């Protein structure tokens, strides 16, 4: 790979992660959310895998993609549990207002989705890129 691509990819990797997190939280009231954010983040890791190699991207991710998927699913699942306590209904979300800021368990659900999407997409992409490397 050219040196320009590999240098720029590190810059874009960081940028994409930032944008993905912005997208994740923007999804609260506007277009965006965990799914789109997760896709952008996964794209960042995919770019890294393309510019360097899959091993570098795997190291950057730190955990196995499937484990990340499981953790995200657990988080999303756990976000539904508080509703059981308040009115015996799964996924009824809790809300807190701090000034103009609305915080809710729905955000936790979205973060869970974010991780599931990153894990799911990278599971596929890493495997495909490894085939190419071989």
């Amino acid at each position, binding site marked *: 790979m050219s040196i320009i691509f590999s240098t720029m990819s590190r810059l874009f990797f960081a940028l994409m992660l930032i944008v993905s997190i912005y997208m994740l939280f923007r999804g609260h009231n506007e277009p965006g959310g965990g799914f789109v954010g997760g896709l952008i983040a996964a794209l960042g890791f995919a770019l890294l895998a393309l510019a360097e190699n899959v091993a570098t991207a795997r190291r950057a991710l730190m955990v196995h993609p499937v484990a990340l998927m*499981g953790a995200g*699913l657990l988080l999303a699942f756990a976000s*539904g549990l508080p*509703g059981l306590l*308040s*009115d*015996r*209904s*799964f996924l*009824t979300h809790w809300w807190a207002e701090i000034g103009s800021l609305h915080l809710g368990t729905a955000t936790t659900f979205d973060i869970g989705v974010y991780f599931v999407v990153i894990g799911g997409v990278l599971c596929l992409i890493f495997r495909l890129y490894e085939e190419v490397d071989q």
Partner: protein
Amino acid sequence: MPDFLTQTALLWPLAIPLATAALCAALWSNAKAQRAANLAGLCLTLVASLVLLNSVMTEGIQVKQFGGWAPPFGISFVADQFSAAMVVISSILALAAGVFATADIRRRQERSGFYPLFQGLMVGVNGAFLTGDIFNLYVWFEVMLITTLGLITLDRTRAQLDGALKYAVLNLFSTILFLMAIGLLYGVTGTLNMADLAMILPNTEGSVALTVAAMMFLLAFGIKAGFFPMFFWLPASYHTATIIVSAVFAGLLTKVGVYACFRVFTLLFEVEDGGIRPLVAFFAAGTMVFGVFGAAIQWDVRRILSFHIISQIGYIMLGLAIATPLALAGAVFYIIHHIVVKANLFFVAGAIHRATGTFDLRKTGGLMKSSPLLAVLFLIPALSLAGIPPLSGFWAKFMVIDASFRGDAAWLGAVALFVGLLTVFSMSKIWIEAFWKDSPRKIVHVRAVPVAMLLPIAALGAITLAIGFNPEPLVAFSQLAAETMADQAQFIAAVFNERQIAGVQP
């Protein structure tokens, strides 16, 4: 605490497998922890489903709105007797498969994600049984489809990829049909909640769109369930998977299609109108006959059993074709009996493979001498499948055939009796080849069958025997379930009178 448990009973058979699937995936690198989490999750799911059945029996139909959104806007989850019983029986089967897996699953299969996929499949199956929203049913079908593909290709062999491809193409076609039918239905009625649909549809003028939608539902579920003209994907793919996966598929997947068929054609559409009855009757007869003929020429145990799934589905559809309360009760009884027996036969096939190293009947033999216990344990489900009294299959066949003679469909009853005879032929073929005859190979190397394999086989056999010798409670239960299933008013009332909860309102 007990109060909390009964109020949320509907959630747990769904939530526990979901949490277990997530946990197993999160513990990706630790196979031992996954194994433990899997077994614990399966036990808890069984307990939860029994709690659900108990509260359905004591308090009637259970309804839950996820997220607290009122019907018909939110997604309803509904459990009546039929669906609660299906959840219980599938949890029993899943636990049996989990125990069997401790002896049979290989390290490589664990690394391919057996545990998360297996639990994911259970989420899909239980979700499909419990949902009260037709679009949500589609979502659960997709969940099942995705996990199924992962489970078939667990070993990554060429044969499995081939089987998975055949499975995927036809099942994707079926889900597309299903989705289009939902679209048409939504276009006509403007709602997707099953209870709401059941209220609106009788007052809707009959139209081409509705008839087409009904036909598409029948076709879509028919492909899933393995009806006569559309069944060829089933014997082409099931036998390629590892035996636990085959057993779970055989027990559950086709039955989810059958369940959906029953739900849609008792709640939303009537079998009487629109020429659906002769079509279902034709499907039922064809399914019975062709399934059993297909089995007759096979030599692979798994293929014989796969074809028998199809032929047995015909008996269940016979219940829907006649659609009298008696016939529906017979069908409910038949489904419960069949899930237990069919999965058990696949487990036995796995044990035969363990003992002799092959699934090909021509190469097996001598098992009666080397493992007499397995021989006895095979006879229970095999004779039950063929309908020999006093086993559970006899009562199941008796109820369905009795209903068909009383319901002016004597020819269907005659077909069913004839097919029963041919089933005996197939089962005795397995018996003669695998157990009775001497092993054709000179060096007999019969391996012992581990206890973890015999235990689930024996447990499921015990259930078959218990139903066989004391069918009265299950017959009474099936009649109750059939009555509730046919009574749309009860279903509608349960969904719309669910205690409204303060909080989020639409």
